[in-house]
């Protein structure tokens, strides 16, 4: 039976210490198609061309080094390659993609999955955009939840955060919501705003973590502070063979970029202007994909599975298939027909993907 699936591409920060070696392990698994191997080879060739460490070396590093693995020019291509490998592996006869969404940098991966770019051109986009922030990120990002631990919405909490950001702006600081990420908000700002947020926002413990916390090596993505990266990106990437998508792509504003309808120009403008300079509303994009395509399941491509939390939270905010809390989501996930299949999770990969690959 083939399931109609929404494919979601993760963004920065999803290749964690736990994922070291995951790419090699994935490719060594049974039934992995050649196309997936070729992705990594192409990635390494590209990296050699631009004088950067091969992706396979990053993945094979004996230990995880923040300075190496989190640095934009490495993190972006590493994550994108891992995503593209999963995309190449995804058995389409079992999981039929009906639309593709991404989170933040995941939009570039979505362009590849959606057929706008082949792997090499998409990697060039990722590489270029990762490097536009230079040696030091411009501003930063902080993450914090606006839902409670059981993923119930706290609109008043959200309003407080928004009011606080407005207050920071009234002090002359650059402070915005950078990403609407399910139950989380990713805030972005210039260095002074980030310092103020770290000092002034109340600390809240959820699960094992204290919030807010700063996302290492992240710049103030999706805000007006990214004007220069946007300009540089346009200049460097205008000559790429931009195309309309082959699969529906849901962008970070919740617009569906449809095959035969979205033009190459629109994709170029959105990708390098609006997407870079304006809030990425992942929640909305997922909501649109769920409602308009009503997929049987969501497939989250790797690396890692940390975006699964935000996806689960979005499902709970939507009340999708009766999911209204973290507990509901966990229950559905444990069933034989989970709503989210994370390829970056070994158990789910084994159960749903490896099984399909081996033809069992």
């Amino acid at each position, binding site marked *: 039976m083939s399931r*109609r699936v929404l494919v979601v591409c993760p963004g920065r920060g999803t290749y964690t210490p736990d994922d070291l070696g995951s790419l090699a392990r994935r490719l060594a698994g049974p039934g992995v198609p050649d196309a997936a191997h070729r992705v990594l080879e192409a990635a390494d060739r590209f990296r050699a061309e631009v004088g950067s460490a091969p992706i396979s070396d990053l993945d094979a590093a004996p230990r995880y080094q923040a300075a190496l693995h989190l640095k934009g020019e490495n993190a972006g291509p590493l994550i994108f390659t891992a995503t593209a490998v999963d995309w190449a592996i995804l058995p389409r006869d079992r999981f039929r993609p*009906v639309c593709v969404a991404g989170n933040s940098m995941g939009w570039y991966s979505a362009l590849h999955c959606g057929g706008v770019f082949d792997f090499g051109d998409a990697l060039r986009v990722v590489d270029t955009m990762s490097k536009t922030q230079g040696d030091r990120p411009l501003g930063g990002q902080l993450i914090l939840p606006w839902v409670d631990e059981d993923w119930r919405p706290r609109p008043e909490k959200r309003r407080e955060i928004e009011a606080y950001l407005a207050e920071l702006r009234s002090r002359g600081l650059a402070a915005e919501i950078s990403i609407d990420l399910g139950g989380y908000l990713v805030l972005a700002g210039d260095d002074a705003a980030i310092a103020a947020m770290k000092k002034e926002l109340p600390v809240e413990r959820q699960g094992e973590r204290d919030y807010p916390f700063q996302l290492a090596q992240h710049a103030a993505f999706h805000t007006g502070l990214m004007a220069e990266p946007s300009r540089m990106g346009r200049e460097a990437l205008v000559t790429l063979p931009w195309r*309309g998508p082959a699969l529906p792509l849901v*962008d970070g*504003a*919740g*617009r569906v970029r*449809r095959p*035969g*309808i*979205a*033009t190459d120009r629109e994709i170029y403008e959105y990708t390098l202007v609006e997407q870079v300079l304006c809030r990425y*509303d992942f929640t*909305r994009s997922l*909501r*649109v994909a769920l*409602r*308009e*395509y*009503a*997929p*049987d399941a969501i497939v989250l491509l790797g690396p890692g599975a940390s975006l699964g939390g935000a996806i689960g939270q979005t499902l709970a905010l939507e*009340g*999708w*298939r*009766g999911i209204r809390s973290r507990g509901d989501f966990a229950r559905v996930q444990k069933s034989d027909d989970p709503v989210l299949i994370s390829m970056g999770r070994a158990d789910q990969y084994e159960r749903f993907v490896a099984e399909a690959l081996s033809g069992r």
Partner: protein
Amino acid sequence: MAVSRQQVIHENFLAALRELEGRAPSIPLPDGVTAELAREIFESQLTSRLIDFEARAMKAREEGFYTIGSAGHEGNAAVAAALRPDDLCFLHYRSGAFMMQRSRQVAGTTPIFDTLLSLSASSEDPASGGRHKVWGSAELNVPPQTSTIASHLPKAVGAAFALGRSAPLHHELTVGPDAIVVASFGDASLNHSTAVGAINSALWARHQRLPLPLLMVCEDNQIGISVKTPRGWIESQYANRPGLAYFHADGRDLGDAILGARRAIEYCRTKRAPTFLHLETERLMGHAGSDVEQTYRTLAEIEDVERRDPLIRSAAWLVARGVMTAGEIRARHDELEERIRAASREAAARPKLTTAEAVVAALAPCDLVAVEAEASRPAPPAARIKAFGSEAALPERSARPRHLAMLINWALLDLMAKYDDMLVFGEDVAKKGGVYHVTTKLYERFGAGRCFNTLLDEQTILGVAIGAAHLGYLPSPEIQYLAYLVHASDQLRGEACSLQFFSNDRFRNPMVMRVASLGYQKGFGGHFHNDNGFAFLREMPGLVIACPSRGDDAVGMLRTAFALAKTQGRVVAFMEPIALYMTKDLHEEGDEAWSFRYPEEGEAVPLGEPRIYEDGGDEDLTVVTYGNGVPMSLRVAGRLRAEGVRTRVVDLRWLLPLGEDLVVAEAVRTGRLLVVDEGRRTAGIGEQISAVVAERAERPVRIARVAGDDCYVPLAAAANLVLVSEAEIERAARALLEVPVA
């Protein structure tokens, strides 16, 4: 099992695609039409059609509750494509393809799922919260219309008029300065007097060179349920109408629809003038799911219409121009069909309205704290001084008590100073200052932009109010006489009062409609000027009815009425008793006991609060009344007082919603209730009051009622024979007093 027309139509389409397979493109795309645009519009058309099919499938599964579809009208997607998202659209019920296309102009919208939620009457339906299947969306600037018979045209005219007025008034708009207003309707509903009147009003304004950027889209499918529109009728009536720009487009032809819609919209946007787009369509699958077309159309006729299916025409158009191959169209069809079916299963499982409280929640928002705060908020001092001419002329400085008409006039001056967006309009309200001078000086002080005469048509007056309210104005239409309101009452009942309900409070059309009302005018009589029947207003859900009997109350009540409109979006009918406008005295000539001083700024009469005329607090009899009944009852009470009888007179002031708890408490207090209702006996408010007390009083209350006869009000002194008289009140009171209370 018989094959349904839906199956035939669907199969015809798929067969047409098979026939188109391998067909080589032979015609270039028209200038200005890109392949992407053509594909997008076609996708909107196809989506709409497949939703129509799904609606019937949902109905069969008992998961869907509405089958009036858009099949055959898909050409309206081309109109949507040529519009901007800030053009305010009042759409009729065959607008599926229009909505699919329009939603593509706004990020984050989910038109397929939203439509399916609406069809399944889910409480999550964003258009109406599950209250009706309507085409509506706040994000898309489409206020939902429940009207089927073009009753949305007057407000479309009103909105276009208000849009044209915004620049000179420096009114802040949520739409662009060159936005237009769109109203779509069918060929059959265009015959309705409401439509004819609305178009007349638009042309009346245009004749005076007033800007009125209104695009009227007549989607002509040549039939209204079973009644055919005579061939050429629409064109014969509107193609050569002075002041009306007529455009024709064949909505069945993708290219003609796109280019024709563009031409019409371009004209309307740049000329700011009424524009008529005659869009030819077909009607497939009958009027609704329940309509058996075979009873009035021959099979040959039905098949003939089906052969003209615009969707088949669109597919052929695309293939001939190399925009899509038949295979690509088939693939798109299959993908959409699958998606819609999957989404329909999800939508059907979403929550429904399950309690009466939830149904009623959006009908009449009423945050009394916010209302009272707004009502007591004073106007900016400088604006008041300007409105009244000088500081010394401020009305609260005037020591002399005044009659109702003058105090209402002052209140209106005051309110216009308070609300920059307030408009006063109606017949004769401007230079003349109204038949009873209640609007005097408003025109002089605030200019023709904010106080203006309308043509003689109450539907238009209320349409202007609703339309202006949609654009952020605070309208105060005046209806010259209560009887004149009756024929326009659907503009209140079906349109204004229903908007919050059917839009789940996403849209509001606040207004305070003033109406010179009720009987007892001396020397100027006759039915139309003395009408005492207002039962038609009392049954309108969501409406607030206020009826002051004295000037100071009127001022405080107007403050609250405007606060209700401003903060809660409510529609208020403010009934002003004509006979009390100039009344100064109460008990005897010259006593000036019915003249009052202007209330201080900040003093308002809370919604639902009555004025109670006590007589010691331990009275023998309660009189519940309003309007002219108040001074009459007070005079009777005065006479009874001389005999040692003490009467408690309750002036309700607010007639809808009726303060039932209050009425019961007041009746129980004395055990004797006399209801003085100057309206008609049948369906009058007296019935409601009596019933409430009879049902709810905890101890026996002796109830009597005096009311007007069930009769029209005749001329001259004969009027008094059928209206409530003081003598009648006195007789009823005495009769009540003769019965001992338990």
